[in-house]
């Protein structure tokens, strides 16, 4: 009896420690495919939270005011989903798009990344659109570049923002495209 109880406790405990099952949040989603290997469309309700606050208990006003990564505390299972990416092609995260919804109940639509072959690739999200819970109108998660342009008016010019970003360009000017001190010509030559 004692052995049985111990075994049952271990089984129940391990079930509680791991995600109980991989839920499917694709119903109702109109997310656009990016054709990533491990993507699935995912539409769900959640609360927008400051991830550092949620994990460590260090909680400044307004979810860190745009300086911190924001998460989605999913209504269905209390799982903390990590939006790594907004809907723009390129290299933009999701904080700028989620910040107006700090601490609010929202609905989001996008792509969930769950790749069993990559350690830690779970509950990673690409958010494509957001709306307040109960609202009809969606807000597209594509505002990062406009926000960047306001922050760096001196960097106005042709081409994508990442070619003109003053902080990035200062680092490349200092240590090169590979971070090894090669000149632009030397680095380019190394790729040919």
């Amino acid at each position, binding site marked *: 009896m004692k052995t049985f109880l111990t075994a049952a406790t271990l089984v129940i405990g391990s079930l509680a420690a791991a995600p109980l099952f991989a839920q499917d949040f694709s119903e109702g989603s109109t997310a656009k495919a990016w054709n990533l290997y491990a993507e699935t469309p995912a539409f769900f309700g959640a609360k927008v939270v400051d991830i550092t606050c949620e994990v460590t208990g260090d909680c400044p006003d307004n979810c860190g005011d745009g300086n*911190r990564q924001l998460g989605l505390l999913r209504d269905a299972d209390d799982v903390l989903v990590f939006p790594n990416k907004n809907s723009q092609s390129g290299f933009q995260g999701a904080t700028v798009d989620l910040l107006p919804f700090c601490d609010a109940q929202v609905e989001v639509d996008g792509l969930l990344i769950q790749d069993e072959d990559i350690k830690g690739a779970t509950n990673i999200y690409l958010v494509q659109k957001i709306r307040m819970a109960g609202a009809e109108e969606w807000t597209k998660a594509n505002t990062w570049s406009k926000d960047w342009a306001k922050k760096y008016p001196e960097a106005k010019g042709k081409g994508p923002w990442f070619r003109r970003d003053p902080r990035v360009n200062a680092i490349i000017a200092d240590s090169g495209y590979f*971070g090894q001190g090669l000149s632009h010509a030397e680095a*380019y030559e190394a790729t040919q």
Partner: protein
Amino acid sequence: MKILPFFAAVFLSAPAYAATEGERVQVRGELIDTWCYFSGVMGGTDAVVGSAHHTCALWCSAGGIPVGLLAEDGTVYMVLKIEGDDANASGDTQLNLASHEITADGMLYARDGLNYLVVEKVVTDHGITNLNHEDYGVVPGFAIPNPNK
């Protein structure tokens, strides 16, 4: 046997994630951009790290993509703070360390399958040590513009 439903109620009524109590750890690894690494958008995990991916790691960090610490055993720690700087979305400290291998001392938290790290001290900054541009060139290929155009 009536004790079993009790155990079930206790374990299953709690949220299915570990308590967010920190554990002190020391980890050595490379600061990476997590979107390229987790999504596979630019190819396999070997190619989206190191010197080959350094320029993209800078773009992603500046763009607010979350930064992670990729440890030698393949574990990824989502970095929440570095030496008191909590700007983990496009912050200067994370940007300046893009692609660097560091030895970090800090607090580890786990939640819903992800590891989170508050780096209290960068014990050693080893610099960019994975010189994989020698194998992969530059990833993505357009990261280095033609200097003659």
